[in-house]
């Protein structure tokens, strides 16, 4: 149990600092095209054990988001999106439940459930995260078009980052 907790803690620390120290500095914009934010750290919420209590997902998402906000100088924006992601996770997991259930699956990762399953799962979660995050950042429904375009482009880059991470740290 302890070593599992240690692994998840280590993953959180790595993803957190990679997000705020590296990905925050990457600006993918050309001229007027300024639609991409690369978001990787919610992967931590995605990879928590299947049996994690729901309130831990919600509270953990909130705290991780708040920490990222501290570096992004955007109080509440990441926190609300990460809280939502934590809240969303159990519903998506039960929706995507494989035939045999999650009985022998410790964490919902590519290695345990296959690439197809993981891409579906990660895509839904990431789009959920990015949509809330960008909506909260823009904070006006009048710019729904902008929100959707930003969500789409950020999603394309972010899901590639997620898959890259999975292929490096979770091979097989």
């Amino acid at each position: 149990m302890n070593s599992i907790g240690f692994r998840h803690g280590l993953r959180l620390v790595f993803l957190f600092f990679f997000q705020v120290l590296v990905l925050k500095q990457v600006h993918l914009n050309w001229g007027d095209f300024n639609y991409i934010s690369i978001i990787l750290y919610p992967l931590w919420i995605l990879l928590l054990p299947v049996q994690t209590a729901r309130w831990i997902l919600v509270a953990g998402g909130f705290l991780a988001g708040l920490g990222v906000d501290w570096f992004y100088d955007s109080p509440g924006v990441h926190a609300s999106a990460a809280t939502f992601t934590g809240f969303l996770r159990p519903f998506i997991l039960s929706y995507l439940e494989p035939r045999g259930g999650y009985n022998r699956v410790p964490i919902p990762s590519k290695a345990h459930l296959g690439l197809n399953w993981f891409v579906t799962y990660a895509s839904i979660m990431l789009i959920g995260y990015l949509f809330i995050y960008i909506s909260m950042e823009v904070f006006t429904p009048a710019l729904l078009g902008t929100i959707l375009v930003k969500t789409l482009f950020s999603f394309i880059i972010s899901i590639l980052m997620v898959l890259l991470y999975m292929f490096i740290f979770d091979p097989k």
Partner: protein
Amino acid sequence: MQNLFAFFYRYAFVFLFLILEFVSIRLIVSRNENQRTIFLNSSNLIVGTLYERMDAVRKYFGLRQDNAALAEENSRLKNQLANLMNASPLITDSITDTVYRQRFVMHAAQVVNNSIERRNNVMTINKGARDGIDKYATVVEPTGIVGFVTHLGIRYATVMSILNSNSRVSAMVKRTSTRGNLVWPGNSPLIMNVEAIPKHADVRVGDTIVTSSFSHFPAGHPVGEITKATIEPGENFYLIEVRLFNDLARTNHVYVVNDLHKSELDSLNQFNTQK
């Protein structure tokens, strides 16, 4: 009763979710109003204090000129005050407009950080929100105009100098009231250009340029003197060079001018541009 507890236990995560989302949105909203300026202020406070310490040393060398300039201004203001006392018993530190309603409120401030060598020059003054400075207040000195307040700290404010590519001031030829835009071409800190004065206007070398009533500066505040006024062949507008009355490299004591009519004027202008 047991069912009730079971219910709360089962759905505790939903309540937790709602509470945390509420907290997040409260944070976002308060950020939109003032969170950003709070962050900005705290850093400004450190930076501003540092600049002020360093500037105190430099100021010693300019004390003689400063004293002379301030004494001169004092005498001029006292003359005005004497005139005012005859006209009305009301003594104010403000410029009154033609219907004698107060429009501008001035706060004395000192420049603690300044630059003139960049294309976009910015200065810091030692008055901020705590001292009643408005955002986008204008900054003048007795001999000329200085800039606009752009960021407001608690004790300090950042001023966009008129020596900045983003600065445009509506100015006019004092003699004929022809309006144009005062911009900085970016070379000498003493020379600015006035654009958009049509060629049929009567402009002569030696005319005085003052701020116009279109600007948020007090109308009629001195700016400079025309040193060159030419019309290039085929152009419809004058090419006018203005030598500023004030040397922004030496600017030290300034007045921050709050425009009490600004919000009303802005909302009207906004209404105009929204077709």
